[in-house]
Structure formats: C-alpha cells, structure tokens
C-alpha cells in the first residue's frame, strides 16, 4: 500500500471516530430540544414553578460561586506560589470532593451536621447554623464541590503568570500584596473569569449533594436539577425535558464563553 493511501486510511479511521462521537453527543443532547418543540418548551419554562426553579438555581449557584472564590483565590495562589509544608496532602484533600461520588459528598455534609449536633448537645436544630433541608443549605451543598473545583482551576490560572513577572514587580518596590493586586490578579484575569464561569456552571448543575443534604421539596429546594428529577418522578416528562434543555443551553453558553476567555488569556500571557 502506498504511503499516501495509508495516510488516507489512517485519517479516515480517526475522523470517522470523531464524527461518530460528535453525532452521538449532538443526538443525545439535541433530542431534548426536539422532543416537544420550541413553543411548547417556552410555554413550560414560563410556568411559575419553572420560573421559581430557574431563579433559585441562578442565585444559589451565583452565591456558591462567590463564596467559593472568596476562599479559592487566596488558597489557589498560596498553593501555586509558596512552598507549604504538607502541600501534597493539602492538594489531595482539596481534590477529594471533586472526585467523590456527589451523593457521598452530600451524605458527608449530613454526617458533619450529625457531629455538630453532638457538639451542640442536640441544640443545633432550629438555629441559623442548621442549614439542612433549607435554601441556604443548597448554597453550602454547591459550595462543597465548587470551592475545591475553583481552587483547581484558579491554580492553573495563577501558574500561567510567570513568576519572574512577580519578581520584577517586587524589584520595582511592590510588596507581595501589591504584586498580587497589580500583577498576578490582572495577568490571570481571563483565567479567573473562565474558571469562575466553569465553577458556576458546575454549581448550577449540582444535584447529588443537594438531594441528600436539602432534599427534593417542590417549591422549596427545587433548583433546576432537582426540579428535573421531580418532574420525571411525577411523570411530567415534557417539563423535565424543557428544564433539561435549559440546563444544556446554559452549559453550552458557559463553555463557549470559557473558550473565548481562554483564547484571550493565551494572547495575554
């Protein structure tokens, strides 16, 4: 067989695999949009219960993302730049919630509260600290996964800032805090924005920890994934499909935005 023919066969096999995979993804995601048609879908999403779920999802995931950033920005920077004792152990600990089955993460949160309950001699229930089966608990459940994920993606963003740039800033009189504010943060801005969007997208799609920690209560804890679960459980197939399509759309928008910022970052650094 000629070399050019071998190359054609090689490329053909690989491109076929790629094409089949893309077709599969398009079909299984696209079916949500084809199932009931755009008009019916819009009608279902306009129902007050769906609107409430959307609003609840938007604010809880945004709050969880914000809380995650408050901790993850300093944590990620410290892990990226400083030689900390036990860094490997810290790394593993922070990565653990990301790789755990989500249900286990939710169950672990409940266990944490069981331990706290003992520490409070059974008086935790009813206090503002008790977030179980309450809306603030949704934020905590989302935060449980969002914060470690944020640390991971922000570490990647900070590590793309050359350390020599920071040293240059310091040799021009800026201390570590000034250098962080004037060089490290702005230079990793696009990575930070892309990371934030990724964390938000992950938070809004969180299901397992919320189900375990806050339950699936219609009109109370039914963020979008819980609302989808309830819809399918109650035989409201069309509504579940419409909400699924909305989540797919949000995910796609997030990914497109992330790609745009990643491109910008490549140009900047």
């Amino acid at each position: 067989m000629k070399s050019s023919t071998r190359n054609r066969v090689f490329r053909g096999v690989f491109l076929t695999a790629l094409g089949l995979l893309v077709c599969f993804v398009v079909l299984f995601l696209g079916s949500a949009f084809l199932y009931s048609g755009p008009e019916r879908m819009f009608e279902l999403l306009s129902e007050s219960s769906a609107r409430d779920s959307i609003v609840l999802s938007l604010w809880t995931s945004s709050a969880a993302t914000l809380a995650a950033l408050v901790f993850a920005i300093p944590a990620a920077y410290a892990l990226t730049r400083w030689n900390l004792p036990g860094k490997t152990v810290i790394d593993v600990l922070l990565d653990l919630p990301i790789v755990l089955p989500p249900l286990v993460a939710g169950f672990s949160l409940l266990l944490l509260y069981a331990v706290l309950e003992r520490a409070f001699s059974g008086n935790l229930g009813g206090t503002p600290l008790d977030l179980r089966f309450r809306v603030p608990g949704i934020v905590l459940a989302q935060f449980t996964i969002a914060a470690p994920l944020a640390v991971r993606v922000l570490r990647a963003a900070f590590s793309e800032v050359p350390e020599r740039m920071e040293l240059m800033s310091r040799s021009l009189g800026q201390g570590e805090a000034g250098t962080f504010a004037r060089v490290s943060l702005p230079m990793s801005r696009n990575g930070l924005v892309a990371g934030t969007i990724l964390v938000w997208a992950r938070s809004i799609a969180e299901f397992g920890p919320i189900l375990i920690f806050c339950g699936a209560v219609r009109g109370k804890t039914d963020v979008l994934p819980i609302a989808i679960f309830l819809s399918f459980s109650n035989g409201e197939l069309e509504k579940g499909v419409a909400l699924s399509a909305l989540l797919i759309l949000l995910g796609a928008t997030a990914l497109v935005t992330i790609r745009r910022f990643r491109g910008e970052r490549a140009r900047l650094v």
Partner: protein
Amino acid sequence: MSVLEWQQVSLDLGEFALRDVSLRVGSGDWISIVGPTGSGKTLLLEVAAGFLRPDSGNVVLRGTNATHSPPEARSLAYVPQDDLLFPHLNVEDNLRFGMRGSRARQAEACNRMANELGIAHLLHRRVDAISGGEAQRVALGRGLLFGADILLLDECTSALDEETRAETGLFLQRWKRDHELTIVQVTHDRSEAHRLGDLVVSLRDGRIETVLRSERPPLVEELPPLIVSNQKGTPDGSSILADQTSR
C-alpha cells in the same frame, strides 16, 4: 564606599552557575560584565536583585547583608534581558509602575523619559504591539524612573540598532552623571563594555576570570576572591565615561 558586594557567592542551577564569586562595586562605579553565554553573568545580577538566592555566600547592599532580603527591600533597579514588561499594561503604565509621588509629577517624568528614549509615540500602545528594541527601551526607562541609586542592566540594548545603541549609551552616561548612579551592566559587546565601563569584569564558567580597567591590560589574571573598589575611568582619560563622570 562599597554599595554592592558579592561575597563568595555560589549558586548552582545546573546549566548555569556561580562559583565563589566575590566582587565589590563602589559608589558611582560603572562595572561592565562580559563573558560567553552560560558564564553566569545574568545569575550575578539576579542574585543581587533578589530574583535568586545563592546557595552560599552573601550579597551586601549599602553595607547591609541583603542575602535574604526580598526584592522590594533592596531598592535596586534591575533591567532584565527579557524586558519583563507587564503585558496587561500599556507602555506608559509600564514606565510608571515603580514610580512614587503625585500623578502629575509621574506623568511629567514619564513623558520626559519617553522623549529621551525615543518612545514617546508608543506611550498608549500595548506592550505586545511594540518591537523588541522598543520594549528594551521601555524596560530601561522603567528601571531609570524607579529612581534607585544602583542600576543593574542585563543586555538591555542588545536588540537596538547600532545608532540607537550608541545614543542610549550616551544617554545612560548623562543620566548616571546627573543622578549619581552606580551601574553594573552585563553585555556581550566587549567594545561597549570598555567604552562605557570603568572596569570590565570577565566571567567564565561561573568564576571571575579577569578584571580590566577600560582599554587597559588586565589588572589581575585570576581573581577568586576578587575585590573591586571605587575606581573610576582610565588613568589616561581615554574613557568617555571618565570624561563625563569624574567628580
């Protein structure tokens, strides 16, 4: 009086190293450091600037042991070979990065420096939209505007054409005279080293090989540890620098 001193400094980074280097720079000196690629020239400056910490030995700044001082505590202006301009800032903001004082004074000094270095037309450009030579001039301007009394220059004119390089050399001489600077300059260009420096220190394999007074035979052949103190220009006055900076 010595303002900068390397005391038996050793640092091994594998490909690059410094081996037991001792060098003393007097106030107002212009020391040129030459040597082949990989001889440790840049390491010498980066150890002084606080970018690298020596494995052993000390860096003494203005009479104080600064070996473990962070870069921001050293008050040295370092102009590195790779410019290290901040890509998220435009040329003007890069120039003003290390400056203190009112914004109006900063702007005035910045404009004057930009005019002197021929980069006034670039002030509002992004730094990734200027040439290598222009970037070097911006980095030099930023270092000078920082206002330190000690200036470390690492191949800071290597991307400039001959004419601009000569102009920049003259400008640096004037600036040094007017601001009473001490300069340690790394260069590949031996003629430039002799033209600008009071003393030319030659490095090889991380060691000081020779020290030459400008355009003169070697003072010492083998020099670890070497002490270079406040010696200015050439005795016969042939050095441009000596003519312009003798005090």
